[in-house]
Structure formats: structure tokens, C-alpha cells
């Protein structure tokens, strides 16, 4: 991936409404320092789940500062933002609850599988091996069956 941070922000406007609570409202500025010391700004405005992203350097309700390398890893889900904050790799000023809501926009760690698939595959394999047939579980309401 060439620029995970740019890809993360560019998909935000589209993904935001599905990911963010309706009550999330406010502005977050991400100040990302490069190895040369230059700081790149991402300005995110959240309103009722709708997201607008720009490069403006404006006053924001919440300001998140870190380096670009770390944010690249946040953008692909490798790093978790609250842990990074707790070890002081990310600093946050202003409205922290807003960032906690925004946390939902970060993706799962790379290679993550749906836990249901893992469990169901394992159970299916075991059932096959042991020749077990799971009873159908749906019954009509009010219809009391006895356990097999």
C-alpha cells in the first residue's frame, strides 16, 4: 500500500455514516509529523455520522498528534489508538470522547477473520469426524418440545 493514511482518510467520507454513532458531532484535526519534521494536517468534520475530510489547518474540537509512520499503522489496523495514547505515542488535546467515537472508523488488524467462521468451521469438522448431526434448533413459539 503506497499511502495507507491517505487511503484511510479518502474512504472515510463514504464509510462514516455506517461506522459512527449519530451523536458523534465535532471536528478533529490530525497533525502528522514526517521524518523531516514537516507536519501534515487532516481536518475531519463529523456531523450526525456524516464525515467531511480536508487538509485545512483549522481550530478543531479535538487535536490528535503523532508521527506519520505510526498513523500509517493505525490506518491499517496494526496499532490501536487508545493503547498508543496510553504509552504517549499519540497525544490528544480537547474533546477526547469525540476521538473515542471516531475510533470505530479504524479497521481490524490485517489478516483478521470473523470469529464466527473460525468457531463454526471447527465445530463442523468435529461433528463430521464424530458423525454427529446437530438438531435443528428453531421451534415455533409456544411449541414445547422435549429434549432428544
Amino acid at each position, binding site marked *: 500500500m503506497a499511502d495507507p493514511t491517505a487511503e484511510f482518510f479518502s474512504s472515510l467520507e463514504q464509510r462514516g455514516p455506517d461506522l459512527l454513532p*449519530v*451523536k458523534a458531532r465535532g471536528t478533529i484535526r490530525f497533525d502528522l509529523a514526517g521524518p523531516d519534521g514537516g507536519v501534515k494536517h487532516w481536518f475531519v468534520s463529523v456531523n450526525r455520522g456524516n464525515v467531511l475530510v480536508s487538509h485545512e489547518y483549522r481550530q478543531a474540537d479535538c487535536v490528535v498528534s503523532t508521527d506519520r509512520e505510526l498513523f500509517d499503522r493505525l490506518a491499517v489496523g496494526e496499532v490501536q489508538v487508545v*493503547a498508543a495514547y496510553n504509552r504517549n505515542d499519540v497525544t490528544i488535546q480537547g474533546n477526547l470522547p469525540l476521538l473515542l467515537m471516531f475510533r470505530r472508523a479504524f479497521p481490524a488488524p490485517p489478516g*483478521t477473520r*470473523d470469529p464466527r467462521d473460525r468457531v463454526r468451521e471447527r465445530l463442523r469438522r468435529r461433528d463430521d469426524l464424530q458423525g454427529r448431526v446437530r438438531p435443528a434448533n*428453531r421451534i415455533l413459539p409456544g411449541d414445547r418440545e422435549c429434549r432428544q
Partner: protein
Amino acid sequence: MKRMASILDGNTFMLSDGCGDVDPSPDYPAGLFAWDTRLLSKWVLTIDGERLHALSIDDLQYFELRFFLVPGEPTHYVDAKTSVIRHRSLGGSFEERLTVLNHRDESVVLTLRMEVGCDFADVFDAREARPRPGRTVTTVEDGRLRLCYQRNRHVAETIVSSSEPADVDENGLTFRIELGAHGQWSTTLQAIGVIQGAGGRDVRESLRGYTQNRPEKRWELGEWVARAPRLTCDSEALEDSYQRSLIDLASLQYVGVTSQVKLTATGLPWYMTLFGRHSLITGLQTLPFLPEIARSALWVLSLLQGGRIDDFRDEEPGKIVHEIRYGELGGFEEGPHTTYYGAADTTPLFLILLDEYERWTGDADTVRLLEYEARSALAWLDTYGDLVGDGYLWYERRSSSGLDNQGWKDSPDAISYADGRLPGNPRATCELQGYAYDARMRAARLARTFWNDPAYADRLQQQAADLRARFNRDFWIDDGEFYALALDAEGGQVDALASNMGHLLWSGIVDESRAGAVAAHLLGDRLFSGWGVRTLSRDHSRYNPIGYHTGAIWPFDNSIIALGLRRYGFDEHAARLATTMIEVSGYFGGRLPEAFAGYDRARTRYPVQYPRACSPHCSSAGTPLMLLRSLLGLRPHHGHLTIDPAIPEELGRIELIDIPGRWGRTDAFGRGREHLRRR
């Protein structure tokens, strides 16, 4: 057991031995802690090289304590020529005022020394001296001692200073004092903790909870107690435990770093942080008394709701958090606890509390504001919660350092068959199904009344009815006439008789025809010790009266069971349980601990302490409140409060004045008419 002395203020606490000294201990996390980090691990006072011995300890307030001490070990008689008063408090910082009294008829020169040290251990590590990966530097500057720990960008500091001049070296402060005949001398030592672990935050300056001064704290405590209803009753034990509970609940309030709202810390000393489950349960217990506890719990847990699949944290979208930690271990991902989600009960409990909160307070705005989070929680029940795909609520640990059991009984051996075998994974414990049923029933009401979505409400009700029918088919053990503790991975019954079943009554998932058998088991010899309902039946293989979740008795568990018994009309059973629990509180000075031992009452005649139980503990503090609700039969109904007392003769009269709610304030009265059967 060795006496310890603690003061606390939210998630900050100082735990020392009975003389006020802090030495490393393998048994408990000794020292000054804030944000799960130890800020003092050595704090030892000597006079002329000799340690002191306590004559008495004064518990002044939860954040204030006073020791009266004399030099030397106790002998047949104490004929001390010097005595020392250590008066310590929390609020803004840790302070200790030392006063030395000379009882001689002549002047004397003494050397007073405070040994000071700090390892900055995470509370998880506080009992063992693990080597720290960071660097500790101690410096003496301007008459102050500065202890500093650094690991990458994480910096923690403790600064110790004195109001009187001291000789400061890297291991402490020394005072050479000259006292006249019957003279006295004082100094105030101060320890300030600064953790730059998060955004250069300074625990001292950036957090309201920590910067409060002492008079403000006293005023706030008075306000807190005054906001709660007033209790007058014949039972002294009940009145004591009610007052104690209100104060303990106040002492556990703290302002979270990230959420910036008041949270309830869980238990001293191990869980001085937010736990999703216990915040929700404490919120439920305290609704008729201090509904702000429920409101904050709902607010902060909605902020921390799971947002992605994260195996290390057992997190999934929509799931409500298990615990948060602020310490170094979580920050550097040596453990998942910064935000850990390994709990299957928190999500339905969140929905239950949201509905119950509105029923009491009439705060419809909160229900509308949290619609997104509530719907996410319901979606979690249908998706990630239903791991197997059969409609039940299951759990299985994915995190390498997570919890094997993810209901409230979360120790590794908590869920077993009667013969002691442990079931495979995933597991579906019975109380989880009750919560999931109740959550859907309640969410249906919210969808219909507040979210303008009757179709969704119908669907939720249908799902709940379906779950109830299947649950009564699959979990009921015909031979034993009780509900299985869990289903195992094969769908088979985990056939232990356990207190979890009591929660089913509270949830309303129990078939009317079976409630009698359930109630009889709960108050029967196998589960009921005479003091309370044990976590596990005494005839099971893993039963141990001092087993955390395999025999000990948990007050909060009993408070939920009492409410469940009343729901199904077992008034005498509920009254009996409430009465014994109030009796127990009397043995613990009005303060119910996290858990106590499950020995039979006939054997011990008094409730035995559980070793290492947290105390105070938030949902044990909430227990007397929920028992009061159960005894008075308080229920919000169509905008007013209905009262249906079922009080045993032993407890006499109970009056609760100014119960807050959607009705404004109202009073409840009840008189003991219930005749208890004794076994």
C-alpha cells in the same frame, strides 16, 4: 490476618500496613497508586532508626486516615517517651502530616526519617518484583526528591517534598529535630504523581477528580449523601449498611482520562478502574437512589463500545467493554487490558440498564441519543454473540491473555460439570440467555416507544419468545429439576447446580411452571449456606467454600437473585435472602465485601472472610440498595412508583423518603409482616 490501612479517592489509593508503612508485599499491592500505576512503593517512617508501632488508627473519611504510633515493637507495657501522629489524606495529591510529641520533662534531639522509593509497577505486577523495561532515575533537587520512570515516551514521576526543611538523599528525607520538654514538632510531606503516559497529561493538573482539595471533597460527599433518599428503619444493621454503601459508592467515583465523565471504580485494591459488568450492575442497583451512576455508566460504555474485530482484545463491533486499564502494561500491549472486551454479558446488560434507566427516570433523551449504540448492541447479540449460529449467546476466548470464561463467573474453573470436568469451547452459560431474552424484550419497548420502529419491536419480541421456548427445552434438567449451568460446544448440558440460575428469575425467562423448583433449589441446602446463595452447589466436585466462583457467596449475585424471586412471587424467599445478607453486612462493619466464604452457617456461626476480596466493591456497595428495593417492592409503573412491601418481621419498619424518579420525589413505607421459615 494482618491489618492493613487504606485511603482512596476514585482510582487513586494508598494501601499500607497498620502502622502506615509501605514495604513490598507478596500478598497485596502495597503503596500509593493512581491510574493502575504505583507511585510510591516504599514509605517507611523511623525515629532514631527504629520503626514505629500503632496504638490506634482513626478512619476519618474514606480519603483521610490517622495513625497514633510509638517507637519500638510492642512489649508488656508501652512506656514511650515519644509519640507520633501520621495524618494522611488524598485529594489533589497524597499528603501526610507528621506530628512528633515529646513526653519527657526535658528537651530531646531526635532523628526522624522517611524512606522513600518507587518501582512504578503496573498494578498487575505489584505483588512480584518483575524487572521493569524502562529506566528509573532518582534526583534530589531544591529540597525535593524526584523519582522518574521512563520507557520510550511514557514518563511517570513522583515528587516528594516537605513543608519543613529536610536533608534529602536518594532514598528518603531526614529531619533532625530538637523538641523542648513536652514539646511538639510537625511537618507535612507531600507526594505528587505525574503520568505523562497520555498526551503529556499531568495527573495533578489535568484531572478534576485528582485536583479536588479536601474541603471540597467533604462538601461533595455531603451533597452526594443528601441527594440519595433518606432511610429510617428499625434495623440498625440495615441503616448502617445503607449509609456505608452511599459513602463507599461516593469514594469509588473518578473522572476517566478519555471519557472525561465520572466513572465508578470497581473494587479496592485490585480493580480500581472501570469494569463494564460491575458498572452496569451498580447502575441497576442504585437507580432508585442515585440514578446518575446509571447515566454515567451508559454514557461511558457507549463511548467505549467495540468498533472492530480485534482478537487480541476479544473485541467485536457492538460489544460492550469488559474493563479498561491505564497502566504501562496495556499501553505497551503486554496485555490487552487498555480496552479489553472479553465479556459476553456486558452487551445485553447495557440494553437492560438503558431500558430500566428510562423506566425510573423518564429520561427519554438518553434513550434516543443512544439509539445507534443500542442497535449495535442488539446486532452484536444476533451476530458475534451467536458464535455457533443456533440463536444462543456463546463465548470463546481469542486473546492470548484474555479470560476463559466471559460471564460474571470469569475464573478459569468457574464453569464445570457436576463431576468437575471443564467443558470445551465455546460455552453458553444459562444466565447469558436470560439476559439476551430480557434485553430483546426491553429493546422492543424502546423501539416501539422511542425509536419509532414498531416492525423492529415485533421482530425483537418474536426472537425473545423463540429464545425463551428453546431455552426452557434445552437447558432444563428433568432429573434434577433445575436449569443447566451452560451448554457445551456439542450442545450438551453442563449439569452443575449453580447460582447463575437465580439470574434467570430476574430476567423472566423461566417458565412459570418451573419457577417453584428453581426457588426451592436457591434456598435449599445445596446452594444456600444460611448466609446467602453460594456460587456452586456444595455437593459438586469443584465446590470449595473459599473458591472465588466455585463456592464463595457474592453479595451482588444475591441481590439479583432476591429481585428475581420477587418477580416470580416468592416473597418469603426473597425476604429471607435479604435478611441474611443484611445480617452479614453487620459482621463486616456495614460494608459487604466483594465475596465471602460459603461455609455452612451451622459450622461457623459467622460469615467468614474471603481471602483477598475487594472491599469496598461497587456492586457489593450497591447490594443493600437493591435489597431495599426488593424488600419494599419498588417498581416504576406508568409514570409513578408502585410499592409492594414484603418485609420480614425481624426487620420491622422501613421508611425510604424522597425516592427520585420521573414522579419527582416520593416516599415508600413498609412494615415487617413476612413470617420467615427457619431451617
